């Protein structure tokens, strides 16, 4: 009887020891030879609690670029430097879409639109996105409204890059090239262009 008790104790304690080392809940579990797991260099998206960055602000591995620097191959960031003011918005009206509405640009525009725009603007640009329909966010103007149809592409570019009214800025997520692709796709959601007689009627109604 007594020898069995010893075996039991050994088995139970060893199984406890083993089962407590895996990951679960707050515990990421154990690692063998962590030197092989952890990068010696600072990795931008990895932040070790026991190895804070001694150089950067907040001990973060990531840091903002020096003001005015542009990543390689992204020179078009520099060509659209507009002031974030009403004047900048008005000045943007003269910008022209440098891209052709090729099938590729439209497809890419659609992909980016579905990622970034649909929560509010809806799949067809009718301001019926999921968070608008649920009443969490006020509806943006529908793309087939006359006001948006007559908005120049340059102003659309400004609104996407810098944000406008309640809409946030997407210049950090979309490159200028991508913004123009999105604009090509959005143009396909506007429907028929505003008819001239309708404009005339509006004008007479105002008087």
């Amino acid at each position, binding site marked *: 009887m007594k020898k069995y008790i010893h075996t039991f104790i050994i088995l139970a304690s060893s199984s406890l020891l083993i089962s407590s*080392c895996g990951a679960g809940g707050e515990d990421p579990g154990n690692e063998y030879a962590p030197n092989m797991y952890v990068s010696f260099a600072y990795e931008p998206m990895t932040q070790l609690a026991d190895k804070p960055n001694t150089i950067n602000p907040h001990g973060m591995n990531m840091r903002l670029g020096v003001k005015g620097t542009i990543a390689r191959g992204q020179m078009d960031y520099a060509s659209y430097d507009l002031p974030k003011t009403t004047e900048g918005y008005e000045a943007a009206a003269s910008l022209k879409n440098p891209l052709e509405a090729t099938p590729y640009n439209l497809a890419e525009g659609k992909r980016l639109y579905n990622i970034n725009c649909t929560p509010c603007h809806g799949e067809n640009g009718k301001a019926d996105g999921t968070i608008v329909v649920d009443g969490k966010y006020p509806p943006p103007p529908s793309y087939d409204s006359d006001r948006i149809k007559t908005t120049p592409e340059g102003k659309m570019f400004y609104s996407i890059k810098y944000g406008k009214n309640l809409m946030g800025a997407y210049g950090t997520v979309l490159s200028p090239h991508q913004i123009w692709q999105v604009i090509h796709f959005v143009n396909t959601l506007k429907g028929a262009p505003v008819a001239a007689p309708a404009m005339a009627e509006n004008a007479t109604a105002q008087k």
Partner: protein
Amino acid sequence: MRIFRLSSLLSFLVLSVNLAFADVAEGEKLFNANCTSCHAINEKIVGPALKDVDKRHNEAWTIKWVKNSQAMVKSGDAEAVKVYNDNNQSVMTSFEALTDVQIKSILEYVKSGGPAPQTASVSGATNGSVSAAKSQDGFYSNTTFIALSVMALILFIIVFVLFKIKGTVEDLYNQKFPQEAIEEAKEKAANYKNSISYKLFKKHPVVGTIAVMLVFTVVLGLIGFDYANKEVGVQKGYMPTQPINYSHELHAGKYKINCQYCHSGADKSKQATVPSASTCMNCHAHVTAKEKYNGEISPEIKKIYAAVDWNPETRTYGTNQKPIKWIRIHNLPDHAYFNHAQHVKIGKVECQACHGPVETMKVVSQQRSLQMGWCINCHREAKVDVANNDYYEKLHGEMKKDGKPFVTVAQNGGLECGKCHY
């Protein structure tokens, strides 16, 4: 042509109705189409709250303001300059296309007080998801563990009692039949001489010891191998508490916001990237979940505001900005290279293939082992969609020549050591 005629007829009809009287329903439509991106009735958004606007300004002034506010400010209208300055000098879009009657309709709608607030649907959804999160704990919850331990203890006691009873009964038997007991003992001794344990441990102790050690080594080795394989360095099940109680179930599940809306690096860089707080602010500059917290801003959303130093009253950013210390869950060892863009943009792999059903998780946990065998398995089995992919145009052409029906990642060199380890 027909459509055009119809639409002009319609607009004529609408106009004629509008000319007759200002209409609340029409005002609601116009309000939602033109005003909501800056104005709400009961709260300040970008522009001021519109409640009681008819008491603050006279109607003719308001109509003039809506049509072209800047002209009024420039002309030095004292009332206009005051409104302009009171609202951070943000310029209101000019709505010269709206008719007087249309603006009156909007004002009627504003007077009517707007839509009734809805909160009922939300509480139901949260309740459901809480129970879902609890069931994830399952086997490892505290109560089950305690119940199992108690049961084990009871079983041990029963075994112990049974052994005791057996011993007592044997003693009694021996006392009653001493002759038979002696014979039985003799028989036992004879049996013992023939048994394996006698031959191994008494006759050949060296062989016995080696055999036992061998068995021990093999068993312990197997346990250790299994443990090292499944547990060490494998973070499957890791579910840390994040600094902000952000729910993927709400954002990605209920509102169907695309993963890449926030993890915008996934299609263009090695990292999927944790979104910057400015991405949160795209919506949360307006969405404060006040209806859930008795008119207070949600404590979780307040944490974003604290990080970006945003003042929701004045709607301006300060300079004292701090990073949010999100905890990374999915880690690969440094000696394995993984690139998100390669898998998301070129391979068109669904995020869920490696991260599990994140859109159902209130708190994200690691669902896959992320071990090499798991990677390799997918590389062996997954067929690459070369036909609809510009990136593989050349490869697809060659495949057509060779008459291959499909290609797996492995056939395309996805098992080479140097692809991931360099």
